[in-house]
């Protein structure tokens, strides 16, 4: 990795906020929901930032803002050294190509009536003027890269297992050679054995394309494995932010400590302690 320049900043977020207006009704005033309350961070190229938090803490809203799906209420988004103009109508396809997202549920994020080949070819058809044959070649190459085969080109999403579908979603995200990939709980719908395969694939792809990942998860064991930096969110705020080792060895915020305590421990020592405690209480 030393030959590649890794010190430059890929993504910078400065005091980003998102409010949602909740409509009022008769005798009921309008309400403003502060989903993300001023989050800032910097992420270097080729690194992985993990965002951890419970449901409703604003981590998915943050992901949607980074991928231009949602417009921030205020704050700056700087990608690859350029400040992004996130107002509707000011986004260029160039900007969109740099950032791609992979969603949590591989059963919901693929169109059931679209063949896999078309799923992968569609971004090329929209954004480039490649011929149909070239698009087909590129799609087939990508299928092989994510561990599927050319024979899958003409199949429909329902013919695949959950892990295979997540591979397809990853392949689709990579078709436009993005630099930044936002992964919104990419493995939480998958079995343990499949989860390991997908995490390995993500690590391989990161090495090959020098990708930068924003990895959203609530599973701390996965975060500890994959992340370089960790941010913990709680009610729209970043309550903890640091390198993986800092956060895991010395969690400062109360919520982070609760989170660590709640994570099931599967080492032999903890099991022994639990069984001993159970025997003691039974006696």
């Amino acid at each position, binding site marked *: 990795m030393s030959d590649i320049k890794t010190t430059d900043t890929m993504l910078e977020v400065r005091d980003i906020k998102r409010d949602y207006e909740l409509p009022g009704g008769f005798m009921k005033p309008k309400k403003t929901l502060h989903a993300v309350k001023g989050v800032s961070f910097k992420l270097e190229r080729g690194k992985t930032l993990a965002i951890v938090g419970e449901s409703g803490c604003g981590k998915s809203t943050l992901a949607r803002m980074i991928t231009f799906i949602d417009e921030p209420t205020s704050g700056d988004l700087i990608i690859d050294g350029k400040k992004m103009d996130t107002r509707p109508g000011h986004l260029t396809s160039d900007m969109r190509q740099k950032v791609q997202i992979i969603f949590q549920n591989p059963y919901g994020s693929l169109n059931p009536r679209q063949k896999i080949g078309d799923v992968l070819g569609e971004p090329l058809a929209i954004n480039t003027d490649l011929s149909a044959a070239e698009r087909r070649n590129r799609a087939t190459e990508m299928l092989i890269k994510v561990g599927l085969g050319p024979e899958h080109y003409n199949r429909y999403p329902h013919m695949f297992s959950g892990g295979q579908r997540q591979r397809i979603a990853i392949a689709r995200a990579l078709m436009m050679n993005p630099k930044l990939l936002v992964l919104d709980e990419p493995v939480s719908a998958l079995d343990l054995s499949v989860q390991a395969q997908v995490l390995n694939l993500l690590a391989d792809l990161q090495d090959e394309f020098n990708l930068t990942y924003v990895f959203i998860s609530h599973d701390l*064991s996965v975060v500890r494995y994959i992340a370089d930096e960790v941010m913990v969110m709680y009610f729209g705020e970043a309550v903890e932010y640091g390198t993986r080792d800092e956060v895991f060895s010395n969690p400062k915020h109360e919520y982070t400590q609760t989170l660590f305590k709640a994570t099931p421990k599967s080492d032999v020592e903890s*099991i022994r302690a639990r069984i001993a405690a159970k025997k003691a209480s039974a006696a």
Partner: protein
Amino acid sequence: MSLLQIDNLTVEFETSTGWFRAVDGVSIKVDKAEVLAIVGESGSGKSVSMLAVMGLLPATAKITADRMLFEGQDIQKLSGSERRKLIGKDIAMIFQEPIASLNPCFTVGFQIEEVLRIHLGLDKKARRARAIELFKLVGLPNAEERMHAFPHQMSGGQCQRVMIAIAIACDPKLLIADEPTTALDVTIQKQILDLIMDLQARTGMGLIMITHDMGVVAETADRVVVQYKGRKMEEADVLSLFENPQSNYTKALLAALPENATGDRLTTVSAFFDGNPEPAPSAGASA
């Protein structure tokens, strides 16, 4: 006498390409006050075998077992109505999707009182009192007000608490929890597991915990059954399973845990045993 004893259970479904065997000769035994975990990935038949016990599989499923004894009584020989008296009363189940398994058209109070009315025949006042007591027991705040709430007005964790309250309403002797925390956050998962384990310890009921999460197994189980593709791979008490796993599949599962990662890549199950799920000795014998 064990609480539940299943010998050689097989469940088959008819598909366009012939009969598909979802559960293949599985034997399971649970004692009183014991916590048994059944572990396996999706498609391993862990839920299907328990649904067969509950009698909740569609009529098209072919279920055969040498014995299916609950407290010494073969539940295969019971008539439909006799079995319905048992299910929901002495054997209760908690499902994976708490919001989907409650009826959206009725208040949660109605749904818990329904159980009390049918199985225990309590009168209106007693039902209400017992329902509120149960809601308090599972830690629902404002139990009286919650009686009138609909499932969509509550969070996933609260719905799961209601499901647990319904399951334990008739003091079951055996509780089957089918991935009770998979849809929940880590912090809520901890609360729900603590609640289930606390209830189990207090009432001394048998508990079958179906899960694919090795962490949940480590935190709850006394004994563990590992299933893969409808077959039982291994059965052991929880400590020896984690310390000294016997079957290749269990070893592979433990190696795939992110916290057990060595180097910068995870060991995958397929890399570990190349589709040969037989126990370890065969590997040495073939060489």
